[in-house]
């Protein structure tokens, strides 16, 4: 299974497949092949819960192709609780800023044609 397929399988189960550098312990997403800190190529898998807080977002009202039926929806960046990793994704059913204040807890609920799918907790 490729790193990306593995990453997707984890996302489907609400997890983020991170990898820990065996040299310096720096955490990365599984789609990264060399440690950004020390350049090492060896990692060990380190899946973390896809639960965190929204650090920023937008509410899309002019969507790209394929997203017309979901508009308005949010695309958000979330910082995970158990690490400093950030992950972004599609977050449906958000119509106005009051629906999603920065800091709102959220989690990954799956992965499909809309990429990583998030939901408010």
């Amino acid at each position: 299974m490729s790193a990306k397929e593995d990453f997707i399988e984890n996302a489907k189960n609400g997890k983020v497949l991170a990898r820990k550098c065996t040299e310096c312990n720096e955490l990365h997403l599984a789609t990264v092949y060399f440690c950004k800190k020390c350049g090492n190529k060896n990692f060990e898998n380190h899946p973390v819960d896809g639960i965190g807080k929204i650090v920023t977002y937008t509410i899309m009202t002019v969507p790209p192709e394929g997203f017309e039926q979901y508009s308005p929806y949010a695309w958000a960046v979330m910082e995970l609780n158990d690490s400093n990793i950030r992950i972004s994704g599609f977050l449906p059913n958000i119509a106005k800023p009051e629906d999603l204040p920065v800091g709102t807890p959220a989690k990954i609920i799956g992965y499909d044609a809309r990429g990583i799918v998030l939901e408010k907790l």
Partner: protein
Amino acid sequence: MEKVCVIGAGSTKYGKLDDSITDIAVQASVAAIESAGIKPKEIDAGYISNVFGIADKQVHLGPVIMSNLGISEKPSLSIESACGSGSVSFREAFANVAAGFYDAVLVTGVEKVTHTGTEWTTTYFSYCSDFFYEGQAGASFPGLFASMARAYLTEFNATEEDFAKVAVKNHENGLSNPKAHLRKKITVDDVMNSAVVASPLKLYDCCPFSDGASSVILCSEKFAKEHTKDYIQVIGSGRGGSPAALQGRNHLTTIPSTKLAAESAYKMAGLGPKDIDFAEVHDCFTIAEVVDSEDLGFFEKGQGAKAASEGRTKLNSEISINPSGGLKSKGHPIGATGVGQVVEVFDQLTGRAGEREVKDAKVGLTQNFGATGASCAVHIFQSV
């Protein structure tokens, strides 16, 4: 390293153009060649920047342009670096002239997309993001910059009205630019009442999709002196990179590649932000100009929005930002934009800018990035 100069520059009008991608690229190239007063045969190589040639049924643009200029035997290449293609192409041309490989080169940027419609362009432009994490998950470019705007509003004492004033200022400058796409005076109310595209960004916070082509001739100092008195010198060139996806960045109110590119360009020029008389910066969205003005060192982090709001970036104020009207008013033909910025600097520093002239300007800076700033190039120019 050879000293590198710009001896000629030209652009088509930016906007919705009827001519083909090849036609407009050649028109801009001819204008640059004529402005330089050289013969096409004196050009050693062509650097062509373009992103969506496929939309107008022409890729491999280099040889097509060179053939139409009557110099099919000269080497050329095409460079794609999203909305930063023009400045990246300019940088490669600069490096090759500085290294002494070539005496004179043509740098032409071009884009032709408006005939495809808003949905096509919104979708295809999203391919410039880190698609797996962003475009695929429903983020358009307005959406990605809107996320940066939301982060800025959360972190700093700034308002959507502050952002709106960037648009108002750039439209005011663009009124004096006959080649600008949107030549229309607008007010803060117009911006605030325009349709929301991706909250908190509204239609008038966004630059338009444009067609257009821009071209410059870069050469060694020796070549410049042999041909004209009307030239400017490139005194700084820098590049940098950022994590391609916004999620890879710890701070969303700064663009790391701009800071890296600026640092290296300032170092090469032996200058700092206070020495810059005017700057053409990448204002694809109003928030982008605010962030740029901080990352380039003109204002402290978090002060850019207020500075714009107070009029400190207007033409002939503290620092004239985007005297051309910027991407917002002049337009944003993505492959041409970075080259078009150099055309503006050439016009400004050789007394061709007319009503939008920055008074007594000696040093100008260009900053142009790709996508959300995943790639960036900064250049500094000086009159001679």
